[in-house]
């Protein structure tokens, strides 16, 4: 029973709640939104237990939408999307709580948009119909555009439009690719359908079209991830967005890109994705992302921008893990996706909290504040260490698995990526030192107040997850494993036959 309606409820409930938030008095908006997001979380939690790792797609709901054109409302969850859905529902209440005193104007609209955004994000992760997927992919753009553009910092308009146009550009080309797939498979089978499983099962004979289609999907996802050199929208959007916006952007929106690779780009076009030049290019871009992201983060004067660039580096690990395509590396990539949502989300919350007190994000504006705000300092340190990947925290498990798995496929690349961990330690520890530990030489900083209970309520769940995954990741890995294994079994053999005839034909 639960299995049949839960995903639909997860999509519908935030929309209903958004309407309610708009209708209640403005002062109540945040309470209602918080309550609604807690309900959403409560709805999603049983997924964790009722999910059967070995069963593939589950909780499937399937309804005709535009039946004559083969467009259906099909949603489902497997070991890849389960965690993305849970991460979304987990971060939403925290985002509402984190915006409590940060957002002061047009509150109902802000919280309503956050809720609509929830629907869009969950929709992306559970859609099993490419038309539905595209709609959700775009629908989540608008709330984010408004969140950055209305409640953002000084150059928010620039950041908002840049964010929108970058994403829009990639996704429209993906739309063309989806339509081409639809026509191609429809011609071949006589059944015109946007269903993911139908397309996946019947996709063959693309010929010279395949690289173009893969390219379109790649562009849409690579912009979202973002991979170097498509990352330039990210620092702007992150820095200008309000705290909740940055958290969601980093925590969930970026994962849509990597999720897209796992769900669509790899399984649909395995031969192209694993062809020699594409592999080389993606691994190279991932490595550039890891090293370049880290080095650029190191020189940022703005703490928020530093975290933004660190995201580029983290997502580089994810991409490396996905393309290495071993069981450890894919599981590691999935885990890094979760970890990045938790750790980077927590970092953005922390920067937002200190920004609310001092109205500055510059690292130079602080110094020695560990003595004034010890609790803040302690939590910032723990979170930073988890982001670096200290053993015992979640960050270690994810990156270690990626490196371990990648070493079997690309030993040299894994070796280079390892230095990325060192770079991460350098920029974060250096930033910590300048913010928390140098001499307390600014008068404004002497009066800072420590974290309030509300702020602790935001951070403690995140800290708990950091420790939980760091110490006992087995529940996560166990649920991921069949899906990761299935993906590899699906992609590896499909890529192989395309390569062998080419070799055989060579003189």
């Amino acid at each position, binding site marked *: 029973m639960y299995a049949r309606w839960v995903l639909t409820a997860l999509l519908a409930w935030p929309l209903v709640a958004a309407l309610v938030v708009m209708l209640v008095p403005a002062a109540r908006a945040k309470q209602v939104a918080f309550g609604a997001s807690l309900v959403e979380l409560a709805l999603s939690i049983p997924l964790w237990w009722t999910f059967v790792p070995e069963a593939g797609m589950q909780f499937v709901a399937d309804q005709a939408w535009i039946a004559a054109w083969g467009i259906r409302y099909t949603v489902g969850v497997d070991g890849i999307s389960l965690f993305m859905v849970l991460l979304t529902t987990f971060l939403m209440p925290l985002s509402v709580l984190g915006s409590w005193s940060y957002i002061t104007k047009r509150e109902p609209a802000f919280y309503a948009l956050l809720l609509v955004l929830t629907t869009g994000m969950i929709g992306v992760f559970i859609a099993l119909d490419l038309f539905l997927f595209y709609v959700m992919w775009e629908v989540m753009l608008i709330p984010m555009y408004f969140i950055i553009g209305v409640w953002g910092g000084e150059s928010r308009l620039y950041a908002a439009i840049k964010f929108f146009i970058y994403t829009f*550009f990639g996704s429209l080309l993906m739309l063309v690719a989806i339509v081409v797939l639809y026509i191609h498979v429809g011609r071949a089978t006589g059944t015109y359908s946007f269903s993911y499983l139908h397309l996946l099962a019947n996709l063959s004979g693309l010929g010279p079209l395949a690289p173009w289609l893969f390219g379109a999907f790649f562009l849409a996802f690579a912009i979202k991830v973002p991979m170097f050199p498509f990352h330039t929208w990210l620092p702007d959007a992150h820095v200008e967005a309000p705290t909740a916006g940055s958290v969601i952007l980093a925590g969930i929106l970026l994962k849509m890109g990597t999720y897209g690779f796992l769900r669509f780009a790899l399984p649909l076009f395995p031969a192209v994705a694993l062809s020699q030049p594409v592999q080389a290019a993606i691994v190279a871009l991932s490595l550039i992302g890891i090293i370049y992201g880290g080095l650029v983060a190191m020189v940022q004067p703005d703490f928020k921008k530093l975290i933004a660039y660190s995201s580029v580096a983290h997502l580089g690990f994810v991409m490396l893990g996905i393309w290495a395509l071993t069981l450890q590396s894919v599981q590691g990539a999935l885990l890094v996706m979760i970890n990045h949502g938790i750790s980077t989300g927590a970092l953005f919350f922390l920067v937002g909290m200190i920004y609310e007190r001092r109205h500055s994000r510059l690292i130079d504006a602080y110094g020695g504040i560990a003595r004034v705000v010890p609790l803040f300092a302690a939590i910032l340190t723990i979170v930073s260490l988890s982001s670096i990947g200290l053993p015992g925290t979640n960050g270690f498990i994810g990156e270690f698995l990626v490196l371990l798995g990648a070493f079997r496929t690309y030993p040299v690349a894994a070796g280079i990526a390892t230095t990325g961990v060192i770079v991460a330690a350098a920029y974060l520890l250096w930033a910590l030192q300048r913010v928390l530990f140098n001499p307390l030489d600014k008068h404004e900083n002497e009066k800072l107040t420590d974290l309030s209970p509300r702020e602790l309520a935001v951070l403690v769940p995140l800290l708990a997850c950091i420790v939980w995954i760091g110490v006992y990741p087995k529940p996560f890995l166990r649920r991921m494993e069949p899906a990761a294994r299935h993906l590899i079994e699906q992609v590896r053999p499909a890529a192989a036959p395309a390569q062998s005839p080419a070799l055989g034909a060579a003189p």
Partner: protein
Amino acid sequence: MSLDLSAYRELLVALLPELVLTAWAMVLLLFIAWRHRTAGDLRATGWLTLAALASTAAAVWWLWWNTARAQGLPGMVAVDDFRWVTDWLFLGAAGLTVLVSFSYLEREALLAPEYYLLLVFATLGMMLMAGGADLMVIFLGLELMSVAVYVLAGFDRKSPRAAEAALKYFLLGAFASGFLLYGIALIYGATATTNIALLGVQVSLMQTPNVMLLAGLALLLIGFAFKVAAVPFHMWVPDVYDGAPTPVTAFMATGVKAAAFAALFRVLTEGFAAAAAWRDIVWWLAVVTMAGGNLLALAQRSLKRMLAYSSVAHAGYLLVAVASGTAAGRSAFLVYLVAYTLMSLGAFALLAAKGRRGESDVLIDDLAGLAAQRPWLAFALATCMLSLLGFPGTAGFIGKWYILVAATGAGDNLLAALLVLASVVSAGYYLPVIMAMYMKPEPSDGAHAGARLGRLGDAAVALVVAGLLVFGVWPNRLLDLAQAAGDSLRPAATAQPPSPGR
């Protein structure tokens, strides 16, 4: 119900919608001659016009309901679903224009009820264009429509800009009509017929391309390209759209364009399906129009001129549907046209609400802070902009998606890719409107106090927004309708060639 068009009585039945509208036009003429002084008279004329449009729509529906079909020899008018759907579209566009015009005319002191009469005549012309099965009928319809719209463009006699617009439109329009007519003459010279169905048979029987026919086709395309405002025949658009009263601009951007496209579709599909030459021409026209329209719109600061160039860009998207040359292309065209008519009319109507004295001075930045003061107006305009952009959840997306399906279905992936790239550019000028309304502070407290449409105008905009959202989420009915209508145009290749003995 099958109608033998060579029998008088049955021809009259086939022409019922046009006859109803003509009769109403006579009634309106008499009414105006009797009462044409006060604002009350103007309103009364407006209501009569709505009644005229509604009863014509009912006549169309009656024929549609009885599945009227032509039988026997090809006649002067077509009797098919394509005609009914486009008729409804023209009537709907005219009806919405009337609703918006009510308060606009009074506000701008254009107290001349002839406005509505001209609107009715223009609509009649459009119906003849889309329903004409003979090049001469199409030409007559085009002239009937154009002459009425020339006058409407210059309807604000006190405004020098409107006079300039009307003159420009008239001169260039006359040229285009000349091209069209000469094209028809050449085609007649090559095939000895102006009937589209017979023409189609003739063209399909030709072994080698006939130079005279191709020249005629080229001139025909130029004439239509002018009317639909395709680059490079779009030069008149910004000035004319800018100078004309805004409801008239809305009508021109939707109805006139739709009628020209409908006629173009019928001529190319039923008459020239066998002549491949036009595909390449239309392909390039589409590419140039999408690129030109979007890039020029990007440079505009005035909202009205931006919308004018955006209508050029949308003509480009529609040309993509034309270029596909398939039944899917025709259906996609109809779906897109419905969406485009709604969103474009809505956008111009909202511009009319914001502006004064012709609205040519409303800059995009003047909308700053509209959302805070007039949230519903801002919401409506934002919906129209997102739909124009082709954003999911709005009818504009469904239309664009269908055109993409038609283009890729015809094997033209490149054109589909170019279409979406052009759409990305369009985000650069649709989004600033939303941005201004929602993200910029209002210049002063009462900056938007005067932004009003009147109750009927509000109703029209509410209809538009509801239509955009409903068709955006639940387009099933619309898609079915468009598919039936798209299939009802048949290329001559499937028609039986006349037996040699006759």
